[in-house]
């Protein structure tokens, strides 16, 4: 077995590095840049039952070390995704992770039921944490019981394992993780974006037409690392980690914190060739550091916990 091959519920991955949902569309554009077969998987753009236009523009703004987005889940709707996007993607040897969104439980259930039957969809990613839509989305991501219930309902209809995407905008991330574990989740993906805002000093108005947006990029990496560190110690679910990854060292850091795979979002914009570069880079890192398999690193920051002085009070 290669140093990178990774087994996760539903997913046999050539390597554990994949683009994060919403930053890679359905792969068509990036296929003009490189052969998508090099990827471990693709987390496709959130799919809702009906087509959505999303929010008015401007939808993105730059921030120190990060960016805000308020796309508003624009997507062509379930039918087109199932009939056009996924079949197109089937030309690649890629297990697809389908990001599922909605405004109410029924929406999620409907999308999950249908999309999980598509052959190249090997797992679902329940987007209970999108901060950019008024209804649903974030409420599911901040109330444990709501999240548990949604997970359970989706699990009942899904043909493939279900990963739940956690929102970082919560007081207690472990509680949320445990709730969805309780609801039957097969895995976690974390983190989604932090809710943020920028105001244009010249006009006095928020830069984003939607006012608030989701903060992503290197700026949020310390929050992601902390949450994965905490959650990986308290649940048995595998975690696909994301939030600010842009270097090989970042990926190692996510593994050390407790991730079992990683996704790259915003960094695709700064460098659209970043995923293949990171895949090569991580392999080289493992060779250079004589690490037999990347999974050896997972959770090492707490597993090997030497008893160091640790007094807080």
């Amino acid at each position, binding site marked *: 077995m290669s140093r990178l091959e990774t087994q996760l519920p539903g997913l046999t991955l050539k390597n554990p590095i994949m683009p994060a949902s*919403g*930053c*890679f*569309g359905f792969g*068509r*554009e*990036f296929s*003009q*840049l490189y052969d998508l077969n090099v990827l471990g998987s693709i987390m496709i*753009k959130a799919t809702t039952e009906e*087509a*959505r*236009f*999303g929010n008015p*523009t*401007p*939808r*993105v*703004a*730059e*921030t*120190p*070390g*990060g*960016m805000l*987005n308020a*796309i508003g889940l*624009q997507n*062509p*709707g379930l039918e087109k995704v199932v009939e056009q996007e996924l079949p197109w993607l089937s030309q690649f040897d890629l297990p697809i992770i389908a990001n599922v969104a909605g405004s109410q439980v029924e929406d999620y259930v409907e999308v999950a039921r249908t999309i999980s039957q598509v052959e190249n969809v090997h797992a679902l990613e329940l987007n209970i944490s999108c901060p950019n839509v008024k209804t649903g989305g974030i409420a599911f991501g901040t109330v444990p019981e709501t999240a548990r219930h949604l997970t359970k309902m989706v699990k009942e209809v899904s043909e493939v394992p279900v990963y739940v995407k956690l929102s970082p905008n919560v007081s207690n991330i472990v509680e949320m993780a445990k709730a969805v574990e309780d609801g039957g989740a097969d895995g976690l993906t974390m983190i989604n974006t932090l809710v943020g805002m920028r105001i244009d000093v010249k006009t006095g108005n928020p830069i984003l037409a939607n006012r608030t947006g989701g903060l992503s*990029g*290197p700026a949020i990496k310390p929050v992601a690392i902390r949450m994965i560190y905490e959650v990986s110690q308290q649940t048995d679910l595998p975690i696909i980690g994301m939030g600010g990854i*842009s270097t090989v060292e970042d990926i190692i850091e996510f593994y050390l914190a407790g991730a079992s795979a990683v996704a790259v979002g*915003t960094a*695709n*914009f*700064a*460098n*659209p*060739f970043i995923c293949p570069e990171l895949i090569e880079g991580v392999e080289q890192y493992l060779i250079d550091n004589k690490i037999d398999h990347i999974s050896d690193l997972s959770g090492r920051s707490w597993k090997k916990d030497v008893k160091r002085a640790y007094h807080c009070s």
Partner: protein
Amino acid sequence: MINKEWMTVLSQEKIAVNIYELTLKGELVQQMNEPGRFVHLKVNEQMMPLLRRPISVASIDKENSQFTMIYRAEGEGTKLLAQKKAGETIDVLGPLGNGFPVEAAQPGDTALLVGGGIGVPPLYELSKQLNERGVRTIHVLGFQSADTSFYVEAFSALGDTYVATVDGSLGVKGFVTDAIQQYGLEADILYSCGPLPMLRALEEAQLTKKGFISLEERMGCGIGACFACVCHTKSDPTGTDYRKVCSDGPVFPIGEVAL
């Protein structure tokens, strides 16, 4: 295929207040054909600024594998770009998007090229290519003031050129539409790039039967993958139909997208 290349700065010159002319050399130039496409620049290797900056191709010199951009140094990214010196390299993604269709104008036609501010640059390569094709070009360039104006002489060498400035310090006082009206300019086809209010005014004026406009929108990826830069279509202004400025545009036929 969309490529990324570390291109070398051949020259960087300040040509007006806050306006810079930057010439880069590299293989990517061989893929630059249509005028009005853009490149997506990473201005430094740091994570700040994080995003690339879209800048139009203003003129292409395939023989020497070099191309020129003209941009305003305003925010963090463009200010850093303005510090690049000859010999340094810049990370360029492109060419991206769909540009102005030169073949939409027939030899012998008259084309009206209307640019506002930093919308002027892509019209320069367009005008060169139209003239090569035997299309007569009339240029109307709008600026804030004389000291932020640029390339007026260069355009004059290609065809009649009219200038409008908001403060009246050069040419007609007012907007490009004032200049067009004042001089009673007419043409077979319109090509335009500039601020939205200008494009709206031109669309309403219905000066020509055919016309193409280039839009600006804040971008994430620049290649069509992130849905940052979408706009509604004119035929479905509140529905789910859309165009992406980065990959369907930035140039659209007049009437295709809702302004």
